[in-house]
């Protein structure tokens, strides 16, 4: 028999909880593919931001798909073309480059998706953590208020907010964030209530830790898992809601491009020139599917029961 070194806890390579999560996620090929696709969209959005909003960027990316002129510049002689070397994904009914419009739309969708989910996680998570830890009457009152919110269909709530406040970007984000706050509050509350009963919380009490310390150091880090999963899935929902609002004309207004208003434009000629609608729809499908697959992958990776 070959003699191996005594392998012991001291010689094993150790990973922190986050490194461990990454290690497990890496083994899921589909999730990694999704992550890769999403990272691609992120990079494109960032470049688009630089190319449109900064003067150096405007110079560097002049004439490329990132150029804002290509997003809004009409050319009525070349409408609804099929892909060519000039326009890789063809043009729309105003002769604008479809690729350029999708790229700009990606930036809008991802900005709204990320910031609305960030907002609702922050607000919903804090509310949930607070009521979960404090419990009692505070819990009861706040959660019933949340239930009222939950009773209103989220898209209706979003429409109501946008139509009263206007469709500027911050309001759009708010309109999409507010309906998902109760969901996050519920999830966090449930996680916190489970963690609160664990013995290590009692142990923290025994060594004299303050309530704030217990929440910040012990409860929140241990209740992140369901929040992370829910956030990933919510980004998908937020992107769909943005597209939905734009589709019915309440979100991003033309000539600025957004996936939803592009679809809305495409529906007018879907029977004659379906390619434009198809390519727009496909983009949305790819992003949403990637987010959902990644969310599922994270759920598996974070579940200790599936460890082996």
């Amino acid at each position, binding site marked *: *028999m*070959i*003699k*191996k070194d*005594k*392998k*012991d806890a001291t010689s094993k390579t150790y990973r922190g909880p986050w490194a461990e999560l990454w290690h497990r996620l890496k*083994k899921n090929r589909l999730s990694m593919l999704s992550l890769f696709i999403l990272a691609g969209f992120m990079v494109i959005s960032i470049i688009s931001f630089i190319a449109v909003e900064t003067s150096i960027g405007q110079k560097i990316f002049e004439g490329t798909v990132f150029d804002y002129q290509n997003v809004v510049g009409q050319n009525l002689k070349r409408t609804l073309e099929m892909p060519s070397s000039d326009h890789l994904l063809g043009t729309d009914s105003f002769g604008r480059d479809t690729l350029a419009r999708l790229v700009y739309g990606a930036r809008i969708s991802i900005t709204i998706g990320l910031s609305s989910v960030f907002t609702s996680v922050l607000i919903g998570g804090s509310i949930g953590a607070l009521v979960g830890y404090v419990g009692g009457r505070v819990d009861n009152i706040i959660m019933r208020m949340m239930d009222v919110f939950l009773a209103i269909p989220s898209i209706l709530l979003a429409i109501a907010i946008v139509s009263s406040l206007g469709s500027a970007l911050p309001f759009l984000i708010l309109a999409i964030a507010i309906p998902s706050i109760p969901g996050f509050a519920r999830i966090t509350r449930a996680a916190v209530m489970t963690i609160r009963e664990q013995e290590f919380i009692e142990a923290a009490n025994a060594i004299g830790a303050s309530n704030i310390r217990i929440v910040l150091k012990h409860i929140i880090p241990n209740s992140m898992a369901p929040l992370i999963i829910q956030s990933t899935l919510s980004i998908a929902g937020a992107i769909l809601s943005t597209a939905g609002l734009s589709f019915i004309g309440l979100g991003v207004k033309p000539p600025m491009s957004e996936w939803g208003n592009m679809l809305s434009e495409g529906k007018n000629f879907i029977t004659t020139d379906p390619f434009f609608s198809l390519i727009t729809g496909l983009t949305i499908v790819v992003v949403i599917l990637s987010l959902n697959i990644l969310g599922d992958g994270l759920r598996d990776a974070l579940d200790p029961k599936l460890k*082996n």
Partner: protein
Amino acid sequence: MNDTLLDIKDLEVQYVVDGEITRAVNGINLKLKKGEVLGLVGETGAGKTTTALAIMGLIPNPPGKVTKGNINFTNSENMKIDICNVNNKALLDIRGSKISMIFQDPMTSLNPVMSIGDQIKEGVEIHQPEVNAKERAKEMLELVGIPKERFNEYPHQFSGGMKQRIIIAIALACTPELLIADEPTTALDVTIQAQVLDMMKDLKIKFNTAMLMITHDLGVIAKTCDNVAIMYAGEIIEYGTLRDVYKNTQHPYTMGLFNSIPSIDKVEKRLKPIKGLTPDATNLPSGCKFHPRCEFAREACREIAPKEYNLNETHYTKCLKVEGCNEYKESRVIDDE
């Protein structure tokens, strides 16, 4: 006439997780006669439960696999099968009817939305359609000391000790020839444990069921078993009758176990624990798997894997020192560090 019920030969079970091989069971040989009670003792990770699951043909695959050996089961009708090499259908016929298993946790082993009567009935209906299942179930309830009027009640209406009785009733309802009890009383309080063990003893005599009692509690073994097998790192390192193992302890690990238990009868200032930790089954030590923790270990123990050495007809152990082989005598004591 052959009265061997179960004959395990050179059984090896491995689990493969992330390309890492966990060697849970490493070549064990065990024989169990009809009506015999065998105690299987070991600490966490010694491979006790894996052995039990292998006998039930329940090793989850993947990640687990029986890599070597066979488990021959001969029932009273002299039907002989090798559990490691039969199809699923044959296993289903045996499971629950010829071999039953009781699990450790009475709280989670019962289906919470089924009445206890129906749960006892279930196995009988599947395996013995000719029997009146309801009558049998009521009979079983009475046998384990629960009034048959409670037939239609649900698990949450019973206490922990009662639940374990119900589980035993389910396991014995088809009058199996072998009952595997995996830590049946670990989750129970001592006074309740005493009741349950007593009842199991009575039932064993009544049905002449052979029993494989898996536990880490040497006291429970002493109360219930005829023979004892001590497991360490997937091997049986000492086997014998209760008297052999308890009164003529040979293997240093077995001795260590006895020394680790505080005695009720004697006064001792300090316990003498076994040093070190139980080995990692993904990376077992070479030679004798106990040598890193053994106070008698010598160089030879690191090189040579000891074989079964018979002290008498019923008692064997795996230890070079007991064997008194020349390699051991001539080699030096291991210097640590």
